[in-house]
């Protein structure tokens, strides 16, 4: 059994908790539906967003250079990182140069991807995540389980317990308002003493050299406005050509993510504040390789709204941690095989190929088709379990030969009808653990047809 299947089975063992998780995410999906249906031109907007992204991906080098040139003109220092290691080194060297000991971060999946926190903490820098969900999982010492709602897997009682231990809130307190207020007071201190602020980037505008960060808590602004040094870390795919294209994406992003018309804050950063420094770190970390894979290129259109997770019937019932990567769910399952095919070879199979992810995606990434294609690559490169590989070879032989097909069909039906139950229902029969086998008829349709249509 692959790793996702194992972790999913563990998650499901607590069925009422699974139901709670499923319902919580389905609620978000329903809110998204309502918000999307409020925009009559929704499908047109998705198409437009998808085309803008296609265009950008086809000229990514040019737009990145244009962005860099404009940003430099604005007084921004631009850095390029080929991989996670280089990204972390660059960020650390900036912090060192500015003698930063205390750092606040707003949500950034890229820095999670690069494991920046651990890197900096090991080097003696205090890193505080300021997005509430991120702070919760940071205090708990866990990775995010969702890219928009990183602590969605935790119940308020668990957060209450955690805050009691770490922030000394009242024991047994579960009121979200009370707990949020406690986090707010705690974070305020951190904002006031931070010497640098790191944010992710939702959109980087080539035309202006500015970056745009969308948050609901205003924590990106709090960090950036108070700290003298601001660092924005972005993947190379975050570029959009012009400011006029931004509206397409902001209209789609929050509606797809949480069902809000727009995030509470849409923050634009163009130049360093007086006496301050602004850095942008542009990161590849496998993205160019993905860009070079024609079948999988579209995965780089992702704007990290998380809608594919909220709609995925498997994600909702297995939790984000079952995927073993920063970006879980359907989009994670098409991004990860490009990073390490062997390690993540189970993820493209963590899907029924139901296609809901592709239809909910605001930039129309053909996620389920890419899952299908990754499966082919995984088999070709020899990463399927041997038993499965062999059984498919045999299935291919039997199903292309009518005589064999009829013969094995008849035997199979006979076996299910006649064999004693323990022969059919045992540890080798994954189907039969919680399901009955079909009740086979005496006659197949073919046999019936031969008899009744006198062939």
């Amino acid at each position, binding site marked *: 059994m692959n790793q996702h299947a194992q972790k999913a089975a563990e998650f499901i063992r607590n069925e009422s908790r699974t139901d709670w998780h499923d319902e919580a995410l389905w609620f978000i999906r329903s809110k998204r539906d309502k918000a999307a249906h409020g925009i009559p031109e929704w499908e047109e907007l998705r198409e437009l967003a998808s085309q803008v992204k296609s265009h950008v991906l086809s000229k990514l080098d040019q737009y990145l250079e244009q962005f860099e040139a404009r940003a430099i003109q604005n007084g921004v220092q631009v850095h390029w990182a080929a991989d996670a290691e280089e990204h972390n080194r660059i960020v650390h060297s900036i912090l060192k140069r500015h003698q930063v000991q205390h750092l606040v971060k707003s949500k950034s999946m890229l820095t999670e991807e690069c494991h920046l926190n651990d890197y900096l903490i090991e080097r003696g820098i205090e890193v505080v995540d300021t997005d509430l969900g991120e702070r919760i999982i940071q205090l708990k010492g866990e990775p995010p389980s969702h890219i928009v709602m990183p602590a969605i897997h935790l119940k308020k009682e668990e957060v209450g317990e955690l805050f009691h231990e770490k922030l000394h809130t009242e024991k047994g307190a579960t009121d979200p308002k009370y707990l949020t207020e406690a986090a707010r007071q705690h974070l305020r201190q951190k904002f006031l003493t931070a010497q640098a602020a790191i944010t992710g980037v939702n959109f980087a505008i080539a035309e202006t050299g500015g970056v745009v960060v969308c948050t609901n808590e205003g924590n990106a602004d709090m960090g950036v406005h108070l700290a003298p040094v601001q660092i924005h870390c972005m993947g190379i795919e975050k570029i959009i050509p012009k400011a006029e294209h931004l509206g397409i994406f902001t209209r789609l992003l929050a509606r797809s993510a949480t069902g809000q018309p727009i995030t509470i804050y849409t923050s634009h950063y163009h130049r360093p504040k007086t006496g301050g420094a602004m850095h942008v770190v542009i990161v590849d970390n496998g993205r160019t390789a993905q860009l070079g894979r024609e079948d999988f290129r579209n995965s780089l259109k992702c704007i990290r709204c998380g809608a594919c997770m909220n709609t995925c019937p498997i994600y909702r019932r297995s939790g984000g941690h079952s995927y073993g990567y920063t970006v879980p769910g359907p989009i994670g399952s098409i991004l990860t095989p490009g990073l390490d095919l062997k390690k993540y070879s189970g993820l493209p199979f963590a899907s029924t190929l139901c296609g809901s992810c592709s239809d909910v995606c605001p930039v129309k990434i053909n996620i389920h088709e890419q899952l299908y294609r990754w499966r082919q690559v995984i088999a*070709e490169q020899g990463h399927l379990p041997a038993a499965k590989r062999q059984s*498919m070879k045999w299935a291919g032989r039997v199903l292309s030969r009518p005589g064999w097909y009829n013969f094995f069909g008849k035997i199979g039906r006979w076996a299910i009808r006649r064999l004693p139950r323990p022969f059919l229902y045992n540890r080798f029969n994954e189907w039969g653990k919680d399901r009955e086998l079909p009740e086979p008829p005496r006659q197949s349709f073919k046999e019936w047809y031969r008899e009744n249509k006198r062939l």
Partner: protein
Amino acid sequence: MKVGLFIPCYIDQFYPQVAIASLELLEKLGCQVAYPFRQTCCGQPMANTGCEQDAVATYHHFVELFHAFDYIVAPSGSCVYHVRKHYDIIEQTEAVKRVRENTLDLSEFLLDVLKVESLDSSFPYKVGLHQSCHGLRGLRLGTGSERVLEKDSKLQALLRLVKGIELVELSRADECCGFGGTFAINEPAISVKMGKDRIADHESKGVEVLTAGDMSCLMHLESIIRRQQKNIKVKHIAEILNGVQP
């Protein structure tokens, strides 16, 4: 008009009544239906597992048997989707192109080709329609709940032609049942949980008969219904349209 009936492998072996209902229904509606006797499978089991090269011989076999028909009709959105979508890895000869263009799900054939406007069957039961994913999102037999388009469903339209039927509205209109081919065996825990959740939705709406355009979804759901001894019957839409009573 030459119509070739394609009966997917698992229907042939386990659910001949669905094939018989499809055949009878088409004949009742005046079609001359041929059933190529050497047919087997569309090749989807291998391909969805990542082994589409192992399915190539099956693809060629399918094309050889069916290319001479004007229409190839199957009571399975999933298999039809596979032929139309994934027979792109073999050489696109005239025969292959013809087969890919003319393979239709039963509901498409009834509504788009035969333009059926009435049926003389009756089915006085509370029915829950499971929208099988490959039909819904692959063949676009209806508007998925994700999409902001006018609501439409070929399967619902056909069921509405049946007298006495009461179609219930589900809390989750088109969530996957959890079958997913080999997924059902690779990820049994989630697969079963998804099935249980779908059944619970139908059960809470008082559904007496659960139907779908794909017998594979129903096979999965029925296997759980039987294990849990629930009081819901399962019928393929072809059986209901043909007036087969539960």
